[in-house]
């Protein structure tokens, strides 16, 4: 209980800081430009910290460790892809996009290709991606409060949605920008400190049993507390001390668990003897050490194709980052194209430092807290591991620190997303001013809240990975071809956006409702980027080739705007 209250205080402090700084922004925010994008010309390091702060979401803070614990080290491709996405962004779009001066993707689309209809189509996908990305943040908040305080899932979802929505509706982005940079450092500290302490406490990460072909084992007699009722699989019979409902019978004492599936009710405790192998939730796969350390993605696809799944994930994450609508806005705040490049390289460094740490929780979780495989709540490993390994007050304090960091992650990413979604609604669809923006923020937050309540059963990174797949299948080809290919037309762009967006979304929705659970369908529908991204590129190219008359008449001046170094530009923004 004391642990819960320390953590609660930490979460409240982080939330208050966010709200206060956001509120300070209100007074500074005057013009529409001010209100939406913080004053331009933020120095690269601070801008990079803000980009990283906004980017490191619930999926990075909690989800990466959870996914690694659950599905093995092959899932390291998620964080690698999240970081490498910035390398692709640097190579393909950073400097030209800043020089063009577009501040949202719909702005770029209409500015480059000159078609209002294209702006509307692009706006729809900004909304789809933005809302989709909001879901894992809300799920993370629901899960965190559930683990820390035992509140029902919806409480955390509602708290986050209300805090962020009211903050955005009141303060706009001015405050948010300021907080984002600080929040990177909060998050880094909140994950690095416990990780380093836990490595020391556990005596290092080098364990032969990690790679041994055997399931994880309870090293000491371990109590597993079950918060949500779960069906689990026992591979080897074991005698446990049970308190609570197991297999529809109330037990209070020793219980023989036979090999096979068992159901345990919420609120029950199971005490496993030292040396017994850990059972796993029915929804997880049993993984011995040798498959857990494989560097290929093999996420529960029975009879899956790990190599294809790995490459598909690589395509989605490497190319998805540059299509995320809330990231592009940040590049507008660079001084010029050169600063945009430098900022991006710093972002790569900052993300790389952060991503060293989630794996620590996964490795130690597998070695020291395999009860998480039974409850299936692998996404909570970062939150629970400090208490599990350090039983005194320091464990509670470290637990509070990660809880605060997790909340910082939800707040910053969902704020950025909500600004993008509300901005797209207010400016691109409704063409309104600041008051419309506020109303749209409230509406967007409400829609997010309702949707967030529906996604409890999906892994955080699965949700985020899907979001990247949609972004990679829509905005990535639009930006890459728009910047580097002279013959792109608005007709081709719409064809690619629609085809890529619809196929990738459809594949993901089919996976969510449970179509295609094995073999090739599970790979191609569950990780669609490997075919939807090329499809979108091809559609854009063919569509443009068929409509050569639609190439904008002012193409040369657009290319000049995209590629000409600042030193050669006249004072006015365009070269008339």
């Amino acid at each position, binding site marked *: 209980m004391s642990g819960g209250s320390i953590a609660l205080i930490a979460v409240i402090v982080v939330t208050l800081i966010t709200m206060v700084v956001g509120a300070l922004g209100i007074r500074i925010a005057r013009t529409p430009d001010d209100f939406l994008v913080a004053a331009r010309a933020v120095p690269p390091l601070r801008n990079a910290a803000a980009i990283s702060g906004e980017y490191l979401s619930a999926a990075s803070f909690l989800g990466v460790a959870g996914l690694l614990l659950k599905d093995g080290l092959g899932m390291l491709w998620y964080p690698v892809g999240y970081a490498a996405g910035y390398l692709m962004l640097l190579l393909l779009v950073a400097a030209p996009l800043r020089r063009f001066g577009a501040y949202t993707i719909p702005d770029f689309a209409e500015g480059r290709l000159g078609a*209002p209809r294209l702006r509307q189509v692009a706006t729809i996908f900004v909304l789809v991606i933005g809302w989709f990305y909001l879901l894992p943040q809300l799920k993370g908040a629901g899960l965190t409060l559930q683990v820390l305080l035992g509140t029902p899932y919806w409480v955390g979802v509602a708290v986050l949605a209300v805090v962020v929505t009211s903050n955005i509706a009141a303060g706009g982005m001015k405050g948010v920008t300021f907080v984002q940079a600080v929040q990177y450092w909060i998050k880094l500290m909140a994950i690095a400190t416990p990780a380093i302490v836990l490595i020391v406490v556990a005596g290092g990460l080098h364990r032969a049993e990690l790679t041994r072909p055997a399931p994880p084992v309870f090293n000491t007699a371990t109590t597993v507390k079950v918060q949500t009722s779960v069906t689990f699989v026992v591979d080897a019979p074991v005698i446990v001390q049970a308190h609570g409902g197991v297999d529809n019978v109330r037990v209070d004492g020793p219980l023989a668990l036979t090999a096979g599936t068992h159901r345990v009710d919420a609120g029950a405790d199971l005490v496993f003897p030292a040396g017994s192998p850990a059972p796993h939730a029915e929804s997880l796969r049993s993984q011995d050490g040798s498959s857990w350390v*494989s560097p290929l993605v093999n996420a529960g696809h029975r009879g899956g194709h790990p190599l294809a799944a790995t490459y598909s994930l690589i395509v989605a994450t490497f190319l998805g980052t540059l299509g995320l609508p809330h990231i592009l806005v940040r590049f507008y705040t660079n001084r010029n194209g050169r600063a945009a490049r430098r900022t991006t390289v710093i972002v790569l460094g900052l993300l790389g430092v952060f991503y060293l740490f989630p794996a620590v929780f996964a490795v130690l979780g597998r070695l020291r807290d395999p009860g998480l495989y039974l409850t299936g709540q692998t996404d909570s490993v970062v939150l629970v591991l400090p208490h599990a390994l350090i039983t005194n007050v320091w464990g509670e304090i470290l637990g509070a620190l990660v809880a605060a960091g997790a909340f910082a992650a939800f707040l910053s990413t969902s704020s950025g997303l909500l600004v993008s979604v509300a901005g797209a609604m207010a400016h691109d669809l409704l063409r309104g001013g600041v008051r419309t923006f506020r109303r749209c923020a409230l509406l967007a937050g409400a829609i997010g809240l309702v949707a967030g309540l529906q996604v409890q059963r999906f892994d955080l990174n699965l949700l985020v990975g899907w979001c990247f797949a949609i972004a990679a299948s829509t905005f990535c080809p639009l930006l890459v071809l728009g910047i580097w290919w002279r013959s792109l037309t608005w007709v081709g762009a719409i064809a690619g956006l629609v085809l890529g967006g619809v196929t990738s979304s459809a594949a993901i929705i089919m996976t969510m409702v449970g179509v295609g659970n094995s073999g090739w369908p599970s790979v191609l529908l569950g990780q669609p980027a490997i075919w939807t991204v090329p499809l979108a590129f091809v559609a854009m190219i063919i569509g443009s080739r068929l409509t050569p008359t639609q190439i904008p008449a002012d193409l040369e001046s657009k290319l000049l705007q995209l590629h000409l170094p600042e030193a050669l530009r006249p*004072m006015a923004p365009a070269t008339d």
Partner: protein
Amino acid sequence: MTIPPHPPTPPPAQPAPQRVVIRSADVGARRVGVRGRAFDERSEYRDVLLHSLIRAQFGLTLGFIALTVGALISLPLVVSLMPWLARKHVLGLPFSLAVLGVAVYPVLVLIGLAYTKLAERTERHFLDLVDKL
């Protein structure tokens, strides 16, 4: 409503809520006068120059994508051909963790730094070329 091809500079402090097409005003443009005029006056060279710049930058981008692909994307293939690699330990860490959890990040940063250097050099050469014309 369409965006005019060359919108005027966004007006300073505009109290009324009206649609503002937000475009870049060029912050940090240096030595604008002389070179800017040189580039515009020789407009018969302008398109040729610009296309050579775009080609050079795009070539650089493709080269670095190839490098990244070589460095990172070949890894899954290598491991699926040599599965015993995954059971090795490197510097006390399982192979996957050492490579994908640690070593990959400095490599990404180095690739990014090298690209930034070369992209800036391409731009400098371009400016020198324009100066000479």
